[in-house]
């Protein structure tokens, strides 16, 4: 073996002094590392939010893509418009009409999933230190964007009916009293990620009134709107407020996430900025994906497919809720979602979902600790449970393992005096108490 000694001081990253301040939070994390185990088949993952697309008619999709290549290949593989394919934008308007929105294709900007739309909107509105108001808890992917643009996130309380209007009004007042500028209210009004709740109809008007009165823009993120189990599509906030709401939609849950096609519907002037920001970021959204989605929507009964998705997710929701009701110890609280992918579960007092996660991974079950959904890292007593991907049997098995983990953790906490109350009573008494109304 040849030897040429080379020592000295190093930080193993020669660019470390050159990164922008916004990269400060981009670090390795213990929790993220634990999720690496969750990808193994031995683990029942109630953590991920992957849509279950096993029911997609792949022959139909394959045929549509084959036709696309054969008949429209050069266009599909070429750069396209920065705003997105005009035909697809017309179809997007048809989709939005299901939720009461009368949008014009000219005001639609196609994006790389609605995640990129969150990024573009934040990019054009937010300077470091600007305030974004978000529900408590809020979507982890959006919080990551807000953090990257160095926004201050102010969380607003939710309950079983979604965002609490009085708390929203108070938050706006308090932020302004503090001399800070609010750039927008970020909300997921339907089948919330991670809270699983929907904004009640009567509250929709109240929220719009508050935003209108305060002259604050609303960013309405609606990836799950067509995935309601019992209630039809809710009327979008944007349907009643064309000027004060930017609406974000996605085909990731109603078709397939791999195409990465989402969109923003924005007031005209904002749309202009979004197109320029999109062109700066990607030149254009991917033509192939857009045309594939367009072909799928025009040649397949896509609404029938969404109905099939709804039924599948309903079955999984039922399996999870029944398992929770059967097995969870007293003191645990959760909501019963009426659509979407998620149950928000709050542990008995004194437990910490983040600290407990390694034990859960050892027991081959995974979830997302509530801390992921708060900008300030609070929410440790709660967790997000996804029912979208595992089969009903695996969901029941996952809940069984989770309950065993919780009981071990309760015993441990009581041993060390970090848990209030009497364990025996909780362990002896299982079962569902009431819908979770303390989504804080």
């Amino acid at each position: 073996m040849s030897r040429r000694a080379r020592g000295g001081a190093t930080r193993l990253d020669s660019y470390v002094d050159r990164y922008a301040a916004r990269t400060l939070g981009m670090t390795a994390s213990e929790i993220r590392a634990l999720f690496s185990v969750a990808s193994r088949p031995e683990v029942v993952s109630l953590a991920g939010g992957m849509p279950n697309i096993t029911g997609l008619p792949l022959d139909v999709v394959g045929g549509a893509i084959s036709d696309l290549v054969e008949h429209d290949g050069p266009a599909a593989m070429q750069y396209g418009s920065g705003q997105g394919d005009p035909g697809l934008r017309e179809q997007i308007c048809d989709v939005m009409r299901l939720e009461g929105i009368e949008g014009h294709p000219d005001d639609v900007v196609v994006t790389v999933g609605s995640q990129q739309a969150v990024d573009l909107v934040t990019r054009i509105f937010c300077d470091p230190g600007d305030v974004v108001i978000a529900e408590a808890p809020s979507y982890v992917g959006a919080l990551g964007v807000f953090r990257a643009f160095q926004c201050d996130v102010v969380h607003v309380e939710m309950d079983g009916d979604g965002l609490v209007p009085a708390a929203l009004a108070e938050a706006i007042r308090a932020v302004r009293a503090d001399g800070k500028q609010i750039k927008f209210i970020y909300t997921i009004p339907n089948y919330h990620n991670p809270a699983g709740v929907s904004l009640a109809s009567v509250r929709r008007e109240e929220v719009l009134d508050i935003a209108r009165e305060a002259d604050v823009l609303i960013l309405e993120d609606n990836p799950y709107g067509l995935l309601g189990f019992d209630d039809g599509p809710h009327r979008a906030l944007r349907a009643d407020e064309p000027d004060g709401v930017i609406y974000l939609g996605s085909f990731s849950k109603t078709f397939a996430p791999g195409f990465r096609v989402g969109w923003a519907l924005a007031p005209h002037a904002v749309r202009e900025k979004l197109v320029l920001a999109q062109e700066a970021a990607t030149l254009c959204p991917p033509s192939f994906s857009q045309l594939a989605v367009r072909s799928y929507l025009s040649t397949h009964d896509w609404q029938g497919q969404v109905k099939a998705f709804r039924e599948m997710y309903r079955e999984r929701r039922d399996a999870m809720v029944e398992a929770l009701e059967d097995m969870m110890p007293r003191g645990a609280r959760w909501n019963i979602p009426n659509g979407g992918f998620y149950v928000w579960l709050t542990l008995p007092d004194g437990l910490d979902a983040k600290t407990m996660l390694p034990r859960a991974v050892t027991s081959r079950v995974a979830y997302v600790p509530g801390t992921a959904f708060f900008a300030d890292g609070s929410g440790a007593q709660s967790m997000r449970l996804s029912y979208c991907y595992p089969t009903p049997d695996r969901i029941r098995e996952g809940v069984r393992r989770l309950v065993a983990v919780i009981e071990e953790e309760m015993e441990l906490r009581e041993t060390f005096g970090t848990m209030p109350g009497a364990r025996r009573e909780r362990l002896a008494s299982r079962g569902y108490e009431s819908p979770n109304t303390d989504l804080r």
Partner: protein
Amino acid sequence: MVVLAGGLSHERDVSLRSGRRVAEALRDVGVDVEVRDVDARLLTTLRDEPPLCVLPLLHGETGEDGALREVLELLEVPYVGAPPSACRAAFDKPVAKVLVAGEAVRTPRSVTLPHEAFRELGAAAVMRLMVGSLGLPLIVKPARGGSALGCTAVRQEDALPGAMVTAFAYGATALVEQLVEGTEVAVPVLDTGSGPQALPVVSIEPDGGVYDYTARYTAGSTRFEVPAKLADEVAAECARVATAAHRVLGLRDLSRSDLMVDAEGTVWFLEVNVAPGLTETSTVPLSAHAAGLDLGELMVDLVHAAVARRAAET
């Protein structure tokens, strides 16, 4: 050649990183290498298509506790690294501390207790006793495991219960140890057939003051110096301690001892790793590089040694 990486331990992600890094290094020197996870098909593959050699880069349970190596012994497949019995002793920090202390090596005073002991004897009383005997500050660790997962420094007595709960989330037994303040150093020990030799000492200065998971695996967040700026006699003592740990525990091929050097220059043994991290931010590749060793060539030498060892055994 097969690199085993991944597994189901809490350190799966670190293991995957180590596996990727070593596979690249081996390919750079022309070795045909396959990276494999540990799953139900592994045994069949190893039995039906025995590789020249296995490089187990699994961190944590199964990989470092000797279990997987027992199976490799049953299969009579050559593998790089310590035998199962040595792994069992080294992976268990309290056991390793006792054995290494017998070699005129200092190791911080500590207490090792399972969760049940606290439950049966009363946690508050046991914790009071521990603080009374060991004093403060303390560090609480899972007795088995690496990457600083589940470790918490305790400077106030009221932080001890939370630290215990954190450690027990990673395993059934906790090691509560006096926290030695000073310079943290890592010392790899390499043996390619001519006896264990310590590689250059690496000093570790994390930006946040704590060499936790984030500081270990975020490039740029820790400053390393290799060879560490230590007095010659202190550096020599670090090398002696690491080599002694390697020898007394019966380790083979490659190990890494984690030590502390306090303000007086006293060297304290903390733990030894039988499958040390070989990621882009790990200390072993840094030390090897400082010694003028190419990681790929080093691995090839270890493979040759492992193959020769197996041939001699059979």
